[in-house]
């Protein structure tokens, strides 16, 4: 009765005590990440909305390769790859210890299915055009994949690391929109509108078990609410704190840290080339002169992001600085507009998505446009409305938007893109770029492409979007820059 029983009793009591202690512990393990834009659905292979990738890419879904925090390509579901001398055949060796969240195994069959699905036109993958070089995908045994290209593509491993090329299982392709199933370190738990997306660490994950066991991605488009939640300390990580009006007071707080960083996002004052007004090069150039981009940067109180003059990241080796191609000159703008036959009072609608940078920029842009004679109507829309009205239906005059996918200058070669920009010259230029294997020559052509877009003043190219993440001071592992849109939970931990 004596010792053994007391020991057992002690164990029971201790167990119950630790059981009681769990809630305190749980609050520290649940990480709340704020992403602002509510995703339209949860399948990154079916939408261009980067918020889906931010929440799910590298957390729920993984590709054959991945991009790390420095923008370098790393192995993911493929452990290594080889390319043939002529650059036309890639062989990927696949991991053999990977399981999907619904229990099925990953093998070359699943990988091949996933890539073939990406290439099918009817599946409307938003980045399908990036993979047009692929001619044939073939399984070699159970854990090797052979990809045959029509022309060499040195960027294929990079492209396969993008969110639209994640590996999905045939069982779940029809349900991934509402219940995503991947191979990543986190499995999807639930998604309730106004509540957020809940992810929990996947027990059978092939890699190291992550330190953060549970995460909640919330979407708060309303700036007042967002800043309020931050000031209440309810948010652990918000990757895009750059343009918050409460930016400075938040910087002073001991419980928060604001990290400086840049994304790959070119912020554009995009115009709908389908509108007659913007088909006139003089009007487009007038707009480029009308916007005081330096003044616009005041929306960022603690960082000075680089201005851009074309759709290209200053961090890319082929970058050409065209930021001063159209200096701020309202007088010249008015003159150009007059030349094009427009006098004061031309109505123009600026569609503003619910992002901080867009909302705050739009105020300056509206004033600048009004200063050269436009009558501006600011239309604030929800993210869903923006995706539908602007991105899908292309029913807009102008909009402020950041294109965060890396190396996406090719969108100007796409006929089906929401810009309605059709340029034979650019399309021809892009196919030369794609076919070019020599890096130096390729860079020269990329420079030419940048110049072409600048000369054409396709949009008003504003600046490279800063990525100042605000995080709880004891949350470590947050990426400084955002080479791809992703919040990689696996690399985060509480200190």
């Amino acid at each position, binding site marked *: 009765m004596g010792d053994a029983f007391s020991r057992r009793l002690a164990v029971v009591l201790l167990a119950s005590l630790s059981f009681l202690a769990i809630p305190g512990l749980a609050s520290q393990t649940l990480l709340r990440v704020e992403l602002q834009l509510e995703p339209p659905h949860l399948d990154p292979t079916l939408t261009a909305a980067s918020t889906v990738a931010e929440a799910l890419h590298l957390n729920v879904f993984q590709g054959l390769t991945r991009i790390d925090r420095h923008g370098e390509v790393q192995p993911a579901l493929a452990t290594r790859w080889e390319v043939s001398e002529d650059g036309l055949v890639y062989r990927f060796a696949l991991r053999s210890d990977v399981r999907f969240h619904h229990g099925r195994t990953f093998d070359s069959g699943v990988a091949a299915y996933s890539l073939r699905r990406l290439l099918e036109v009817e599946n409307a993958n938003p980045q399908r055009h990036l993979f047009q070089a692929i001619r044939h995908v073939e399984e070699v045994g159970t854990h090797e994949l052979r990809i045959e290209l029509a022309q060499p593509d040195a960027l294929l491993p990079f492209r396969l690391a993008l969110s639209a090329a994640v590996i999905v299982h045939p069982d779940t392709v029809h349900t991934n929109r509402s219940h995503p199933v991947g191979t990543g370190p986190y499995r999807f738990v639930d998604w309730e509108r106004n509540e957020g997306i809940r992810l929990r660490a996947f027990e059978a994950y092939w890699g190291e078990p992550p330190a953060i066991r549970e995460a909640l991605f919330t979407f708060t488009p309303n700036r007042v609410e967002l800043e*309020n939640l931050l000031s209440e300390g309810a948010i652990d990580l918000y990757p895009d704190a750059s343009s918050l009006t409460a930016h400075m007071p938040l910087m002073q707080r001991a419980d928060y840290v604001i990290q400086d960083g840049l994304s790959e996002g070119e912020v554009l004052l995009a115009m709908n080339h389908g509108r007659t007004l913007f088909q006139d090069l003089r009007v487009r150039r007038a707009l480029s002169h009308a916007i005081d981009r330096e003044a616009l940067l005041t929306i960022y109180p603690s960082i000075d992001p680089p201005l851009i003059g074309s759709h290209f990241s200053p961090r890319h080796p082929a970058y050409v600085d065209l930021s001063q191609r159209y200096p701020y000159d309202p007088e010249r703008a008015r003159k150009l507009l007059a030349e094009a036959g427009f006098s004061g009072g031309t109505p123009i609608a600026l569609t503003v998505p619910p992002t901080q940078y867009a909302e705050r920029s739009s*105020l300056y842009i509206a004033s600048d446009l009004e200063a050269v004679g436009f009558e501006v109507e600011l239309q604030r829309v929800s993210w869903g409305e923006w995706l539908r009205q602007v991105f899908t239906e292309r029913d807009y005059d102008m909009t402020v938007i950041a294109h965060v996918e890396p190396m996406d200058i090719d969108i100007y070669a796409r006929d089906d893109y929401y810009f309605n920009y059709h340029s034979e010259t650019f399309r021809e230029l892009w196919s030369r770029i794609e076919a070019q294997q020599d890096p130096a020559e390729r860079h020269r052509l990329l420079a030419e492409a940048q110049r072409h877009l600048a000369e054409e003043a396709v949009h008003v190219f504003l600046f490279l979007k800063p990525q100042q993440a605000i995080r709880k001071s004891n949350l470590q592992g947050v990426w400084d820059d955002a080479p791809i849109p992703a919040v990689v939970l696996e690399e985060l931990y509480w200190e």
Partner: protein
Amino acid sequence: MVPTLVILATILLALHSFGEYRATVSQLSERHTHALMTASRLMQQSESMLGSGAMLLLADDHFSRRQALFEITDRREWMERLVDELAAIRGEAGSFDDIERVRDQLMESFDALDALVQRRIDLVGQLQQAPDETSDALLRETERLLARQMRTNRSLSQDLSVAIGYHVSGIRLDIRDAAEQMEQQLRQREGALKGFALLAVLLLLATAYHINRSVVRRVVKLQRVISRERPAPHELRVDGSDEIAQMARSIQRYVHRINDNERRIMTMNRELDFLATHDALTQLRNRHYFERELNERRNALAAEGYCVAMIDIDHFKAINDTHGHEAGDRVIRCVADRLRRGLPESALLARYGGEEFVALLPGFDIDTVVPMLEQIRQGLESHSIELGETALRVTASFGLAQQLPGGEFDEALKAADEALYRAKRSGRNRVMYRWLSQDDSGDAAYG
């Protein structure tokens, strides 16, 4: 078993109570914190609306106006959701019509304010470019309307705060009620838990007492009895039919067996001892014993004085030869018997040889002993021994001596033997003794 169950039940009750407590606390904290946070956010937003209104009022260009308007729109949008949330939390607890009505009026008021500010900015712009009286009057009128609109705004904001305050107060009451309810439940549970704990303690004590009575005390008693040098089996009796009683019975059986064995060994020892000191035929002491005894009593005998007699059956060889050994044995037994009966208790009588006996009579002198021996001799002579059909007349010769002055016992014995020899030589069936003369120097005078 029962105490274990009660302890387990107590622990389970405690755990269950903790679980409920935790659930209630977390529900209280989650639900009420959420409600309170929602209400206070709503309150804060309704108050901040005044500030945003001021920003709008102060806007002197469209940039500032839009900025203020953005903020107002954001606040309105959030307030709408906050009211919905509060309504969902409070459920039936109150009407939200007031809040919604005032909020809508406030928003209309802001729209009106925005229109006035927009007109003012445009009028100021016009006046700066080309002053004219109509515009100037219009501007003054706009300013007046703006002031009025601001007052309306302010009063609506206050109304909204009051309407929200009503719910804040309701939430506070809810929290108090929930806390009181929880406290009451906790008190009840605490009472039950205390009762269980007390019961468990009592049961433990009862168990301890029972174990002490039924196990410890019995085992201790058993151990005490066993540790004695010579435990008595009846003391090893333990009532009941449990293992201890069974063990006690086993021990009892062993003790019985040990005691029996010991008794048997003692008897055997006694028999061996008897055999070592007695003559098997006559049951008299044997010569070995006699000599050992003499040796031990030498000093006492010297001090006390003694007589020693040697007795020999007459013609014993002939009896043996004629009637056989059995008859001889019978004769020896009869003579021994006569001697035993005829000599005093204190005499040490032993069979000394085949048909020879010796008797030591401490404290006796010859005068006392001679008549005894004479009586024995006569007794033998006058009684025949029945040997089947024949009756045998048996006689014996007696040699007697007493302590010799300064002499050792051996000398007295030798003197007795000599006296016996003389009795034999003198015709047997007689008592011969050696008188102790005045100057006894070893040459004896015999009677």
